[in-house]
Structures are given as structure tokens and as C-alpha cells.
């Protein structure tokens, strides 16, 4: 009997991506929480902190850069580290494992979901930022190119680390309690809610181990005037170092995800 060919991993992965988006959009609470939460935070912080943190730089401008960076961590790392254990509990993963779909097609689906939900968040943040708080967008290609590669590296590292970390929570129900505090602490330490250089140096040093600090710095390089670079810790944006750190975390995330991923409890 001649076997017709199995669908490719990529084809199944893309079809999983569409399915994931469909399922995500059907869970109204997660749509509101994930997509609108950054905008809500922007409204709150933008209303409270109206001062300029440097000549021509409002706190809102600084905050939008930080929120885009932390959105990458929320939609990638946090969301996956919580939802994958839930899918392990409800049998989604066990069912998949019993089919010819390879694990990598599941991961591709997750990356597509994170990419789409992240893109919606960025667009919403920028629209509200520009309309309500007069945030200025970069006007030259160089800054947008920086934006794209920082986004992509953030997306990849965050997604892979989320898949890797999904093995840590023992159950889907407890996952949020394990994962959320890590993300919130990192947000405080990495200069999302406060100006990074005003944090104690031990916090800065601790944050510098993890990707979020480098993501926020990369987004500041995109959305803040170049003159602000002088006020960064190193006195520059350190784009090379950002690429290096996010690259290392992406590679580490890739191997960790492969090594630790579990189909079953």
C-alpha cells in the first residue's frame, strides 16, 4: 500500500497557530487581560506621572517603551508558562502526542499565537500613547530596524523560555501563582514601572542577568531621543550587548525547552 505523504511540520504548525488564535480569542477574559492590560497600565501611569524625566521626554514615553518590552515577557513567557501546564492537565498535550503531529509543530503554533497577540498589543499601546499622551514615534528606518530585531529576539527568547518554564509548575491550577510573581518582580527590577537608573544598583545588577532589562533598554533605544542614551547606565544604548544577551537567552531557551518539555504530568 502506498502511503501518501505526511503533512509537513511547518504546515501543521501554521494550522495550529490559527487554531490557537481562534481558541485564544474565544476566551474573553484572557483577551481583555492580555491585550488591554498594557493599555490600562498606560492609562493609569500616564495619568499619575505627568512629569518629564528628561528634557523633552515624558514618563509616558519611557513607560510605553517599558510596556512593549514587558508585553513580550507577558505574552510569551508568562502566558505560555501558565497555559501549557493547563493543556498538560486537560489532555491537549496527551492527545497531540498520540497523533502524527510533531512537538515542534506545537511550538510553532505557540510562536504564532504570541506573535499575533504581541502585535495587537503593540499597535494598541502605540495608538493610545500617540492619541492620549502625545508619544512620538521614530521617524527613520534605523530606529524601526532596531525595533524589529529587538521584538523578534524578545519574541523568540520569551516564547522558548516560557515553554521551558512550563515544566516547573506541578499543575495548571498552581501555575499562575508560580509564574506571575517572577514576572512582576522582573518588571519592577528591569525599569518598566520606574526609571531604571533610579533603582538601587543591586537591583540593576540582578535585572541585568535576565532578558527583560535588555528588552526595555532596546525599546528605549527605539522610542526615546538619542540624547537620552547618555542617561543609561553605560552612557549608551549598548545595542550590541542587547543583541548578545537576548541571543544567548534564545539559544539557552531553545535547549532548555527541548530538554525539559513534558507531555504529561
Amino acid at each position, binding site marked *: 500500500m502506498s502511503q*501518501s505523504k505526511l503533512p509537513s511540520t511547518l504546515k*501543521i504548525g501554521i494550522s495550529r497557530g490559527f487554531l490557537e488564535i481562534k*481558541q485564544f480569542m474565544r476566551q474573553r477574559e484572557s483577551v481583555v487581560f492580555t491585550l488591554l492590560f498594557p493599555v490600562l497600565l498606560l492609562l493609569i501611569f500616564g495619568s499619575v506621572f505627568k512629569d518629564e524625566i528628561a528634557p523633552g521626554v515624558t514618563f509616558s514615553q519611557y513607560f510605553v517603551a517599558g510596556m512593549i518590552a514587558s508585553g513580550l515577557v507577558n505574552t510569551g513567557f508568562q502566558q505560555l508558562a501558565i497555559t501549557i501546564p493547563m493543556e498538560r492537565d*486537560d*489532555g*491537549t498535550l496527551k*492527545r497531540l502526542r498520540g497523533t*502524527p503531529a510533531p512537538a515542534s509543530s506545537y511550538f510553532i503554533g505557540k510562536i504564532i499565537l504570541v506573535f499575533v497577540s504581541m502585535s495587537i498589543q503593540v499597535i494598541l499601546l502605540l495608538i493610545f500613547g500617540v492619541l492620549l499622551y502625545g508619544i512620538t514615534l521614530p521617524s527613520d528606518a534605523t530606529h524601526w530596524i532596531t525595533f524589529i530585531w529587538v521584538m523578534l529576539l524578545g519574541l523568540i527568547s520569551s516564547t522558548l523560555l516560557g515553554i521551558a518554564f512550563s515544566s516547573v509548575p506541578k499543575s495548571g491550577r498552581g501555575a499562575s501563582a508560580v509564574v506571575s510573581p517572577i514576572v512582576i518582580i522582573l518588571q519592577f527590577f528591569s525599569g518598566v514601572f520606574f526609571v531604571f537608573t533610579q533603582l538601587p544598583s543591586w537591583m540593576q545588577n540582578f535585572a541585568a542577568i535576565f532578558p527583560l532589562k535588555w528588552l526595555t533598554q532596546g525599546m528605549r533605544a527605539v522610542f526615546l531621543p538619542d540624547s537620552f542614551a547618555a542617561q543609561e547606565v553605560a552612557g549608551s544604548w549598548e545595542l550590541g550587548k542587547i543583541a548578545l544577551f537576548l541571543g544567548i537567552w534564545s539559544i539557552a531557551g531553545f535547549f532548555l525547552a527541548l530538554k525539559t518539555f513534558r507531555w504529561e504530568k
Partner: protein
Amino acid sequence: MSSTASAIEVHGLLKSYPNHVAVAGIDLEVRSGEIFALLGPNGAGKTTTVEILEGYRSRDGGSISVLGVDPANTDVRAWRNRIGIVLQSTKDAADLTVEEAISHFAGYYSNPKDVDQVITAVGLSEKRKAKGEQLSGGQRRRLDVALGILGNPELLFLDEPTTGFDPEARRAFWDLIRQLKNDGTTILMTTHYLDEAEALADRLAVMTNGKILEVSTPALLGGRARAKARVSWSENGRSNLEITDSPTQFVNQLSARIGGEIADLSVSRPNLEDIYLEMIGEKV
């Protein structure tokens, strides 16, 4: 494709967990095209055995061949393309409709069945737009079966397929399984329902404490065919019972003596459940 007479061959299969031996060296053969039922109380090792055969678990010893290959050591995708698995109770895909779930999973296989035909075959035509979470227990199970048979499997695993079904749904389900068998699918099922095993299985095995007690047919299991028959009838307002090796002869004599219709006459052999309970009761 290699065409062997056995869909599954198991020799000396061993699986231990830290505190107990789940499967204690069993031998098993499932022939191509048959429905084979694995019976046994909870904790007997049925699910462990089946999950090893499905490629979900590793084994500690013994050799297995499923559709001619060892699941622990094969090109998993090509092999999984040839089998179908219906797991015990599931609750995934709750926010997808029947139709969405089935069309999506069809995209995983090289030669899937037609989505509409599968929906009709499992009797979910009226529920095709309903989400997983809106289905009753029996409908949900039929969705699981739909996803299991979608890839046109040569071998189908059914783990406790009709738990939670009402009698009518169970009959409909049995017809579906017989249809699959007629189409040439080999089926290995576990079940708690002896009437189900009797209705469907060509052969069955009884498992307790990680061992197989007997492999037989529903009619012959536990010496059932040789078991004494019970003849009961009423005479002069009293009910009588005779346990005998030769019920035909006994009824003939009875008929000659009484003449005409014998009130409340019934001749029965122990049913499969009686035999089964006796078997596991002795050995547990």
C-alpha cells in the same frame, strides 16, 4: 507495508514503578482484523499495558511489536499515522466546535477520512456546531472516537470507550465499532462492561495484578461453555431449580412429565460477568 497476521505481539512485557510491579511479564497477541478486549479490575495493569503499546510509556523489559514495529524505536510520525487512540476521559478542545476540532485534526494525517463522513458516522451531525464543553458525556466520547478514527487507522485503541453512555448510545456506539471492524480496522479495547466485551470482542484477556489470567473468547472464557446449566421452572405454584450438565435431556423429561407448556421455564449458563467475577475473585 508489512502484512503480518498479528497487529500486536507482546512477549514478556515488564513495567515496574517504584512501589509496585504494574505489568509482570505478559504475553499477548492481537490478530489483524479482530476486536480484542482487555478486561480486569482497576489497577490490574490494563492502562499501563495499553499506554506502552500506544508509545506513551517506556517498558522495563520484554519485546513488543505494534503493526510490525517497536513503538519505542521507530519513526514515530509514520507509525502514529497508522494508529488511532481514544484515551480515557478527556476535556481538551472545550472551546472548539465538533466540526472545527475534526477538520483541524484531519490535517495531521496523510490520508484522513472525510470530515463530514466521520461526523455522520459517530452520530454528531446535529451537534457539529456545538462546542466541546456543550456536549453531553456520551457525545463528548463520540467526538473522541471521531478524532481517533479520523486518520484511517489500521489499529485503533479504545480505552473505556462507553463510560457514561446511556443504553441507547451504547448500542449505537457498538454498531459504529462493528462497522470499523468490517472496514478492516483492528481494535484493542479495555472495558469495565462485560456485556460490551461479549457483544464486541472476538477474543479477550483477563488481567489482574499485572498478569494475564486467561486469553479466550467470550463464549469459552473460564470454562463457561462447560459450566453447568441452570434450569428453572414453576410447578404447582412452586418454583424449582435444577443444575445439570445435560439441560436438553432434563427439559425433555420435564416436558414429557408435565405435558404442554412448562410455566416460567428458563435455561441459562453463567453469564460472562459471573465467570469474570469468579476468576478475579479467586485470584485477587
